[in-house]
């Protein structure tokens, strides 16, 4: 494989021979890797399969392939058997033997490993039949189950680098026009038109020009860039080479989080493979165009996701943003024209070149084209990485793909856009929330309560609703999440991560945190809400960079949709979700089965009770740490208003009856 590709023809020949040599119908065992996969035992699983195959003398006939993330994080590790396409979930090394005898040798599926619909109890055999995948439109992840990220030949076999060959035959300006026409917008959060950015950078004066890939995915709850780099690094590299050619740059950088060790390893390997093949380097495919990529590992500062801060950090300096009187496309890295795009943006480029601008523009909504990868996390049954067309509704994402909230709890909100984004309400059936929205002018008095569940998800609609697309984190919250606490969480995060260069951000966030903490502790006053809103506006108007300017969003959006919760904290000294420690008491109600599970984790030994008898929390000893609440399988621990715990437990004592032995035992198992 070390042979350098000299021309486009070489590439075509290589691809053709790879397809021929693949051996049609050859059985392949595909195992999902990636950080999550490995954390759940993918490599042990691969080893188990290899050993079993060896023992069955099938080592030559059957291939074991460790791919990147397949997105269905909740059910990792996933195993697929090709060519049949059988889709197995939560496979353990001990299952390897069974799969080999029953499926590989016997040609029959293993029913217990198939995905079973939680409602219909029907099991399905292939990936496309699993509801989690059925509503997705997987373009960037299209080949994720066919590519071993450490093998460039896998990427070339599925048509990789063909777009590069095609692009090198186009004039750079035509290429930029193609990307502009496709309507591709930056996937990092800003949503700026990629083609327009490229054109400005190409026109900018100064040599050399740089292209940069922003892989400093600092938004908590977002991991699509990690998955792309770990699973299909060449799609990002190919995009960067094409972009560099269009802009007229010969040097690229990838700035990647050091917290993603696997992504760094895979990327460095991929770049060196591409270099060996002559796809990076001098005179790429005999086009006269030369380009090289360097990987730079970030220092773990959220602010470095901001373009000017990132470039400062690339130069080895403190990652502080600067005012953008002059855009980075004019003067960025070392004051040279620099074009920065996000990982996902770069990965879209080869697709657009391959299939055309019109094809790309046919997907999505009027001003948001293509697909978007979201990290669907939090209180949702099917946590995972999903790729959906722009304009899909929240309802489809949350229910059809996400499978609803675990443990039959109630959906409350969705948070998008990371710390700079907002928290959106999804259900407004609660009359009090509706009232507060009316009071706050979000709804008119005669309007029915709106349901944001039918909000089409794209750049503009999310912004209108008071949040933003961001890089694509989508965190689902249920009744157990306190919105004041969520706002406090983000403000605390931003306050810690503020670089401290400009005053409004540095001091504004600190003051905001003080105010919100006071509210969470039940010491807030009504005027604090006004101060919060005023401070927010000052920050929006005066902060140096976008991160500061958007920092008040978590507060503003929760105030907009969940003002009632702020009021409960301030006026009633009550945390409706039971999260804010200073305002809650933990108590055990009559549904307790006496299973003893909560005794062990209690750090103050506040819980007492005999096995199969009602347990009681000693209110004086309890420090409200929540360990018992987290572990109870019967939802018997209640988080109530401070001081009301004793009352609940009194009532429980009167009502409690011993559980039927059998049902308690089976429920506990």
């Amino acid at each position, binding site marked *: 494989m070390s042979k350098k590709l000299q021309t486009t023809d070489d590439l075509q020949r290589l691809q053709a021979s790879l397809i021929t040599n693949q051996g049609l119908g050859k059985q392949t065992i595909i195992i999902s890797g990636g950080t999550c996969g490995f954390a759940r035992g993918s490599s042990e699983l691969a080893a188990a399969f290899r050993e079993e195959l060896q023992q069955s003398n099938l080592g030559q006939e059957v291939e074991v392939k460790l791919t990147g993330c397949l997105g269905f994080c909740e059910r*990792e590790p996933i195993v697929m058997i090709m060519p049949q396409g059988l889709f197995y979930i939560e496979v353990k090394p001990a299952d390897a033997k069974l799969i080999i005898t029953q499926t590989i040798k016997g040609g029959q599926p293993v029913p217990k490993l198939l995905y079973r619909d939680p409602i219909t109890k029907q099991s399905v055999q292939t990936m496309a039949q699993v509801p989690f995948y059925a509503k997705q439109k997987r373009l960037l992840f299209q080949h994720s189950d066919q590519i071993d990220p450490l093998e460039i030949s896998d990427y070339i076999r599925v048509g990789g680098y063909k777009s590069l060959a095609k692009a090198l035959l186009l004039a750079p300006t035509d290429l930029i026009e193609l990307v502009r026409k496709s309507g591709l917008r930056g996937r990092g959060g800003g949503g700026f038109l990629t083609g327009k950015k490229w054109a400005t950078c190409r026109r900018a004066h100064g040599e050399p020009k740089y292209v940069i890939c922003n892989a400093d995915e600092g938004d908590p709850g977002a*991991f699509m860039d990690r998955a792309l780099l770990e699973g299909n690094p060449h799609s990002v590299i190919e995009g960067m080479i094409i972009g560099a050619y269009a802009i007229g740059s010969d040097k690229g950088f990838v700035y990647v989080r050091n917290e993603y060790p696997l992504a760094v390893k895979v990327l460095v390997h991929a770049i060196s493979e591409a270099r060996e093949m002559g796809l990076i380097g001098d005179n790429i495919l005999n086009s006269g165009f030369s380009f090289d990529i360097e990987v730079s590992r970030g220092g*773990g500062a959220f602010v470095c996701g901001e373009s000017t801060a990132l470039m400062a950090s690339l130069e080895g300096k403190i990652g502080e943003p600067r005012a953008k009187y002059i855009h980075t496309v004019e003067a960025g890295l070392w004051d040279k024209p620099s074009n920065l795009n996000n990982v996902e943006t770069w990965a879209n480029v080869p697709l657009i070149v391959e299939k055309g601008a019109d094809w790309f523009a046919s997907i999505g909504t009027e001003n948001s084209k293509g697909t978007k990868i979201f990290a669907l996390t939090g209180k949702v049954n099917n946590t995972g990485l999903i790729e959906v067309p722009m304009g899909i509704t929240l309802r489809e994402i949350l229910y059809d793909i996400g499978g609803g909230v675990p443990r039959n709890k109630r959906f409350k909100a969705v948070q998008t856009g990371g710390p700079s984004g907002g928290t959106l309400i999804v259900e407004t059936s609660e009359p009090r929330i509706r009232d507060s929205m009316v009071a706050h002018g979000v709804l008119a008095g005669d309007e029915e309560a709106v349901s944001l569940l039918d909000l089409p998800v794209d750049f503009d609609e999310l912004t209108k609703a008071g949040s933003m697309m961001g890089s694509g984190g989508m965190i689902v919250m249920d009744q157990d999440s306190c919105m004041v606490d969520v706002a406090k969480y983000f403000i605390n995060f931003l306050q810690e991560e503020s670089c401290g260069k400009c005053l409004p951000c540095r001091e504004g966030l600190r003051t905001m945190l003080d105010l919100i903490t006071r509210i969470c502790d039940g010491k807030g006053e009504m005027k604090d809400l006004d101060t919060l809103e005023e401070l927010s506006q000052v920050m929006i108007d005066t902060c140096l960079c976008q991160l500061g300017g958007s920092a008040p969003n978590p507060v503003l959006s929760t105030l907009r949709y969940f003002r009632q919760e702020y009021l409960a904290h301030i006026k009633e000294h009550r945390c409706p979700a039971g999260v804010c420690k200073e305002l809650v008491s933990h108590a055990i109600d009559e549904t307790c089965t006496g299973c003893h599970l909560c005794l062990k984790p209690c750090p103050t030994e506040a819980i007492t009770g005999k096995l199969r008898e009602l347990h009681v929390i000693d209110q004086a000893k309890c420090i409200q740490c929540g360990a018992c609440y987290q*572990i109870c399988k019967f939802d018997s621990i209640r988080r109530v208003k401070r001081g009301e715990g004793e009352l609940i437990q009194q009532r429980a004592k009167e009502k409690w009856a011993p559980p039927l032995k059998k049902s308690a035992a089976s429920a506990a198992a």
Partner: protein
Amino acid sequence: MSPQRLLDIEQAITTIVNSYGAKPQALIMVLQDIQKRYHYLPMDALKLAATKMNMPIAQIYGVATFYKAFSLTPKGRRHICVCTGTACHVRQAKVIVDNLELMLGIKARETTADGEISFETVNCLGTCAMGPLITVDDVYHGNMNVTKLGKILNELKGKTQSTDDPELSDE
């Protein structure tokens, strides 16, 4: 500082700096490699790096204190990270942090008195499906609760605890 250790640092820094070249843009990666080797940034190493990279120590100190990933104080022999990303937060990572503080008797970013265990919180490790999540010496432990946490700590401390509750076992 013993002359032997100084020599060791000297050698290590030379190798690290040479692997990137003495250019300013390599500074962060040089510091990362130093930290990887010593689990923190020893002042002697920083001074040496300044000489080798021909850079003022003030600049290096500035960078070392700006980025969260760097520590100027020694970390424990075993290191625990608790993910407090948003997804873990809504799955009550705070409970894990609070209880870890209670169990170890230290706050986040501190090290136990015997120098054995240190812990810190990180903003997101990007494995949200497994939240709440901790890593112990870079090994991931997902779906954490306080009972499991206690077991992990006990194992770290070299004790073994009888597992009389089968339902408490992992996942």
